């Protein structure tokens, strides 16, 4: 068995394999649900119901998708330029810290002034945080996979330090959490009465903007050129290191927005469990989306739906939520294979 390249894949060739990958994922999940003692149809039904079956479920999924869109975009932008940013988790927390620093009473501004200021400052924090590993990479050749990954742990400890110290809520009865954000610093809901905040709206806008940047601007063109072939980009006169740093600023900023939107939109406060690994899930989201910004939205909704649906299924059917992790891992693996099949055909010997 071997692979043969297809020069001009047809439309069905491009879209069928990914769809089949999703169907296959469902089969694997059903089998595992059965092993765990559940009825596979009931389990899948419960997951879907839990993800989109009611207004509450749907809103929960959208809320969960919001930070994933941000981190997914952050990873997609960086990976496209072959900047291996594994540190979206740290950048997320840097955005959250800035949101708390500015939103808990330090600035007595009204919402229209305060929220944009918080967005800009959060993004700057995340941007600068990714700039450090990028400078180490371009100047000294230090592998950014290692540095960005390690920064995640450093930042989690920093957050812990802050929550036990200067940022600790005096009214928190000893819990390691920050003070609550002022009402002016909170992101309003998109529709009154529905538990969905503007973070989701900003995420959609961000995805659209990144798509435009990628396809229509010279910066997007340069980012892709550097990612595909840095040598040719340098030969053609592109400022490769500068483009790398600009990419880092954009990627870090996007990841920080995830932290900002979780604090200012959803939680209202900073705790150590603000992110259940959104930074890492962002990598899955970006890969599932094949690094396409609009695909990131779809992939984030899928990943969020699986998580939310599995939570609810677990309560009803007694099958562990680990099923969600397995489903996502299976989906990712199969998607990688499916993408291969959009470009190659399998030849039998």
């Amino acid at each position, binding site marked *: 068995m071997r692979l043969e390249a297809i020069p001009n894949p047809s439309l069905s060739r491009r879209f069928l394999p990914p769809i089949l990958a999703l169907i296959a994922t469902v089969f694997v999940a059903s089998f595992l649900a059965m092993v765990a003692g559940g009825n596979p149809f009931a389990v899948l039904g419960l997951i879907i119901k839990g993800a989109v079956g009611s207004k509450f479920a749907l809103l929960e999924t959208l809320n969960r998708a919001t930070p994933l869109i941000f981190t997914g975009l952050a990873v997609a932008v960086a990976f496209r330029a072959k900047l291996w940013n594994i540190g979206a988790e740290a950048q997320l927390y840097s955005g959250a810290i800035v949101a708390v620093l500015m939103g808990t009473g330090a600035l007595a501004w009204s919402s229209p002034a305060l929220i944009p200021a918080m967005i800009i400052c959060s993004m700057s924090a995340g941007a600068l945080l990714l700039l450090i590993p990028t400078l180490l990479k371009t100047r000294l050749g230090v592998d950014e996979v290692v540095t960005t990954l390690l920064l995640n742990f450093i930042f989690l400890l920093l957050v812990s330090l802050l929550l036990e110290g200067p940022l600790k809520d005096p009214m928190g009865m000893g819990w390691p959490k920050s003070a609550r954000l002022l009402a002016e610093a909170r992101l309003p809901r998109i529709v009154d009465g529905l538990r969905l905040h503007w973070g989701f709206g900003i995420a959609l806008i961000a995805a659209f903007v990144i798509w435009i940047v990628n396809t*229509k601007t010279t910066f997007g063109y340069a980012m*892709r*050129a550097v990612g595909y*072939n840095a040598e*040719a*980009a340098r030969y053609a006169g592109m400022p490769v290191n500068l483009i790398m740093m600009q990419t880092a600023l954009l990627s870090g900023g996007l990841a920080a927005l995830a932290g900002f939107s979780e604090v200012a939109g959803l939680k209202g406060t900073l705790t150590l469990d603000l992110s259940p690994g959104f930074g890492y899930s962002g990598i899955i989201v970006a890969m599932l989306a094949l690094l396409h910004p609009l695909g990131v939205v779809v992939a984030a909704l899928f990943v969020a739906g699986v998580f939310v649906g599995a939570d609810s299924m677990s309560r009803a059917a007694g099958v562990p939520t680990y099923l969600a992790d397995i489903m996502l891992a299976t989906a990712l693996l199969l998607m990688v294979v499916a993408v291969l099949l959009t470009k190659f055909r399998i030849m039998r010997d």
Partner: protein
Amino acid sequence: MGEVVLRLEGITKNFGALKANENVSLNLEKGEVLALLGENGAGKTTLMNILFGQYTADSGRVEVFGKTLPPGMARAALDAGVGMVHQHFTLAHNLSVLENVILGTSSLWSWKLQYKQARQQLLELANRYHLKINPDAKVSALSVGERQRVEILKALFRQAKILILDEPTAVLTPQETESLFKTLTEATEQGLSIIFISHKLHEVMKIAQKVAILRHGKLIATKETRETSPNELAALMVGNPIRPPAVTERDSGPVVMELLNVSTESQHHSKGLKNVSMRLCSGEIVGLAGVSGNGQTSIADLVAGLITPSQGKLHLDGKPIDQWSPRQSVLSGIARIPEDRHHAGTIADFSLTENSIIERYRDQPFARHGWVNWQAAEGFTQELIRQYDVRCPGPDTRIRLLSGGNMQKLILGRVLQNDPRVILAHQPSRGLDIGAVHYVHKKLLEARQKGATILLISEDLDEILQLSDIIHVASAGRVSPPFQRGKVTPTELGGWMSGAAFAKQETLHAP
């Protein structure tokens, strides 16, 4: 007539609308060298990939030693005794020669046991075919010619009885080609059969007994080399008789670019320059000859803006250049045709359109306020495809699907379109077929006629002698004094290439 070892019967292969091979039938006899001749995109490589099981033919049959090969199985071709040396080598750089040779020949468990025996076998083979090689050398430390030897040894080690060589001389110096031919002759005498893919006519005439000519995927003719002539082959290959472009006399204009006692640091892949002076005038082609790796890359990188002099000065229009970068080089009106069109010249996964604007994506008319004007870019690309005869499905095609010649045509078009003042042509015709080579030469001569300054760097002495008004020779980072067209013999140039003439010059100038 000898025993037929390989038979291709009615091979047809389509890629979409493109007919890569159409009903091609060939016979290869034992102990014979069969040359497969054809232009870029004529279907030579596709045919060999089918034979070797890398592609599956739409119809047709491959028969080796009387047995039909299952289609699309490289393993079967290998087992049947077919070995292929690809144009782009498939060696692991960080492994030794021996490790590369035995890679994949035995199961992992028996690895250690086979080492000693394999070394013995390898040395025997090397001895038998006069392929001098050190089995313990790292491949990364070998020259291109030596790497090719390893590839051939790899095939022989796998007991190949039929050897396919895809454009083996494209990357070799004349001396290396000579020694390759000796090896091939040796091999056929010992009973091997060889398919030699090429588009260099004099090589084909020299090494092959039989020539099969492909054009547009069809087998046009099969000729005995003793009954044909290079002219006839050329005509068969391109469909109509071609002549190399004529060089007209022309007076040179003012000095445009000048290297004044330039020295550079040696880069990891190229020798640094030592006190080099060169003068490039308008309306003339300055040829830089020399064996590869003697400082040519440094001169090319210097003109392209990738490196700056550590000592000495680079002058443009009589003014010293202070700020120098690839971008500055582009902005100064220097057209750069890079040596490595796959890595430096193009981005494989970008479309033709995206590749044509790569040097000018920030400038009018392709950009305005940070937005790319894709309409202008595509219009420009359509124009290049039309004017420079780039054979491709369309401007949206990824450039990796183009043949080397068509890729080079796009690069030529991209840099020549705005009538550049200086043209840096680094190995512009390497690996191209006759038609494409003549095309490149014609375009360079046209630019010269328009008054452009051209620096032609080539390892092909014939190319240098044919085109250049002024000739320099590079050797060990030094550059010879200029020689006028027709005032120097190849033997004299050879003296400079080997470095001997430099030594003589130094003793002459010694106090």
